[in-house]
């Protein structure tokens, strides 16, 4: 069985690589900080500080899959965060209106600016979004008037700082969090079993039964470990729920819908996709619109976290999002990349920051180390890709 485990690991090293990396990083920091890293408070904070980058990484994954890049998302997020703060503070709108309005605005920016320039006018995405980056930086300063704007709305701020309510408290544990965790694990186990049954039915290759059970048990225990940690603190945060929903939806779209398949086809071979009746133009519009929408969401999350919009909000988000996508296994040559991978990639980068913060590592070293990790991740990606094609 160890043989099978080793074979499975080496075969799927590309898929498991970043999970292993994340685990290693967490263990290292836990040891170096005498367990401080794995305390409920730190974990909870880690998730919230990853949230607004994670949603950008999800959108960026699709952008990179179709062989483009979006440098504007940081300041678009900053700008739309400021807009949402203004809508909340000055106009007093409810968040139930602010959120959809901001998301729609983000989607429109992605579609009408980037989409038009890249898909219709054939401007390289790098340039089109570099221009947008500068433009929205200016707009951000303009709308905030170089001042900090408070949201002045409890419900708004809860998106970035609050936790889901509880139905009952038992022994200091957040019960609803545990219930959600258990349901998620059950759903996962159920889907895996159903999937395995189908694969067997179609005579496709599956792992052996003991391996399968070990995998399920492992995933379930890891998830429940973190759920209990969070439940012993304040429970799941709203940010965690929002990111979870985004990942779930995007994962479903990319894996199970015709749209998702079309996106990967365009990334894998645009000429072949076009000849297969897929409009490369349309897909480009859709992907940039989705990126804009997620930038809006990122802006809302960040503004809520700070409880205010600042004139420098969003600076450097795009680079963290791109790094997250690459660390998460998205291929720079297009056509390959998973939404779930990018989330893990974003978590890896955030864990590095958090861990080094806890150890009081200077900011200068933090940047250097994060840069090196990014390079190592991409080297790993390129090398394992060659390995795979050689094997065949």
């Amino acid at each position: 069985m160890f043989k099978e485990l080793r074979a499975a690991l080496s075969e799927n090293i590309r898929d498991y690589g970043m999970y292993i990396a994340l685990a290693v990083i967490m263990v290292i920091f836990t040891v170096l900080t005498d367990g401080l890293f794995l305390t409920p408070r730190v974990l909870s904070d880690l998730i919230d500080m990853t949230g607004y980058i994670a949603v950008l990484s999800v959108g960026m994954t699709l952008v990179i899959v179709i062989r483009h890049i979006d440098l504007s998302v940081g300041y678009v997020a900053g700008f739309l965060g400021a807009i949402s703060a203004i809508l909340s503070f000055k106009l007093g709108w409810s968040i139930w209106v602010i959120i959809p309005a901001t998301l729609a605005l983000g989607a429109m920016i992605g579609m009408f600016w980037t989409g038009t320039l890249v898909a219709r006018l054939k401007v390289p995405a790098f340039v089109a979004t570099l221009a947008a980056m500068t433009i929205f930086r200016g707009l951000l300063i303009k709308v905030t008037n170089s001042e900090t704007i408070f949201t002045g709305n409890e419900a708004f701020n809860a998106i970035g700082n609050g936790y889901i309510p509880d139905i009952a408290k038992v022994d200091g544990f957040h019960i609803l969090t545990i219930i959600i965790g258990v349901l998620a694990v059950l759903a996962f186990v159920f889907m895996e079993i159903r999937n395995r049954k189908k694969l067997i039915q179609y005579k496709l290759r599956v792992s052996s039964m003991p391996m399968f059970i070990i995998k399920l048990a492992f995933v379930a225990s890891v998830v429940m470990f973190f759920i209990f940690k969070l439940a012993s603190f304040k429970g799941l945060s709203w940010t965690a729920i929002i990111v979870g929903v985004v990942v779930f939806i995007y994962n479903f779209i990319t894996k199970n819908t015709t749209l998702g398949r079309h996106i990967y086809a365009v990334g894998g071979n645009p000429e072949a996709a076009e000849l297969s009746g897929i409009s490369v133009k349309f897909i480009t519009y859709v992907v940039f619109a989705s990126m804009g929408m997620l930038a809006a969401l990122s802006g809302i999350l960040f503004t809520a976290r700070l409880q205010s919009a600042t004139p420098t909000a969003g600076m450097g988000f795009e680079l963290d999002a791109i790094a997250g996508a690459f660390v998460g296994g998205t291929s720079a040559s297009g056509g390959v990349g998973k939404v779930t991978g990018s989330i893990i990639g974003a978590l890896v980068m955030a864990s590095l920051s958090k861990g080094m913060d806890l150890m009081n590592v200077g900011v200068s070293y933090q940047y250097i180390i994060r840069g090196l990790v990014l390079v190592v991740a991409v080297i790993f990606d390129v090398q394992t890709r060659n390995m795979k094609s050689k094997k065949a």
Partner: protein
Amino acid sequence: MKNILEMRNITKEFPGVKALDNVNFQVKEGEIHCLVGENGAGKSTLMKVLSGVYPHGNYDGDIVLNGEVQKFARINDSEKKGIAIIYQELALVPEMSVYENIFLGHEFHKKGIVNWHSTRVEAIKMLEKVNLSVHPSTKVIDLGVGVQQLIEIAKALSKDVKLLILDEPTASLNEDDSENLLKLLKDLKKEGVTSIMISHKLKEVIAIADTVTVLRDGKTICSLDASKGEVVEKDIIKYMVGREINDIFPKRENKKFGDVLLEVKDWSAFDKNLGRHVVKNVNFNIREGEIVGIAGLMGAGRTEFAHSIFGNMKEYGLTGEIFIKGKPVKHNHPSDAIKNGLAYVSEDRKGDGLILIQDVKQNITLANLNKIAKRTVIDKHEEVIVAEGFRQSLNIKTPSIEQKVNNLSGGNQQKVAIGKWLFVEPNVLILDEPTRGIDVGAKYEIYTLMNELIAKGMSVIMISSELPEVLGMSDRVYVMAEGKLTGELPIEEATQEKIMEMATL
């Protein structure tokens, strides 16, 4: 006259194919030597061996230049000996000026600092040699293909070329430019430059060649001497195609043709990038249950014709009409053509046919995902069933339908590509070079499949450069050359010689 070049017993193998088989090739000093043969006869491969693209040790046999055996490790080595090769795709840098291009890679310099003054002066001398009166500071991108071709030659002359090799130099030129180029070759001959020209245009060959060597299936067939009156079009064609047809084609019982399914009238495509028509006034039709072959040589406009009627416009300006079952239709995008019952299996499987990094089942279902989706959610059961079905019916040899297409052999990739287009259930299946680069067994399977499809009432348009295949499979043959339809033959009247004659106008 002595031989400037002798290539002795050259053999070059690629995995699975012998591209050159004991080829002997002699060129006399100061002559214009034309190399002719069908697509895939080995002409370009031979020239690549000569120029060092395939380095010494990569082939068997000897290259003897001026009596000395040469061992070129790379292109630079052959250039030093005075050999220059000009490819069909020009190797100029479009955004650079004429003089920069001419001396690119061998600039006048002192310790790395370029002397632009002498560069310009020398460039003007070179331009005079090729009778070109463009300003040397003009950017290459602003010049026509014909002028660019001459600049390539000027570049070769600046390297003190003794042996000039031109790979189909006139393929993309208009008549005036072609004539100009041929005249220049004659002028250079007077100055002692030996030229080897690969060409598909026999009229040109006859007009200019001192010697013609014919290659066929990687072997030297003969060398014809113009001074002895041996260079005659009929003979050249005979030697080019004179193979016996021993490929076996599956027999087809009771041919039955229905009504005209697809008709194309006065169809022209103007390529805005190239600045010329790639398809010109083509009238074409196909009936139900018919296999129509489109023969022609490379660059004849066959693939462009297929792409343009399939709605893949690229940078084409299109005129003309398409009728399907008598109704006029417009294809602005391949998706329109697919809806109207067309399917196009690309000539370039890896380039624009398949998505190599995806697996067999994803490739097969790509063009018709809606068929296995409910409200845009793909039914993965259904997908596996569909893919598994094609794997069995087309006999695709793969360990699993989850194998990446990249890892399959050429023949099996082709079957995946065909499966993908059968899944859209077309009425007209366009196969562009359906058996290029695949083994004999897979070829036979594809031929058999074509017969099965037309028995069901489908129509098949087969674009092919392999004459035996065209003659063995088609019910009717169109021949294209230079974007025009140059002939239409019922299969009973079609012969290799007739087709080649129409294709080499």
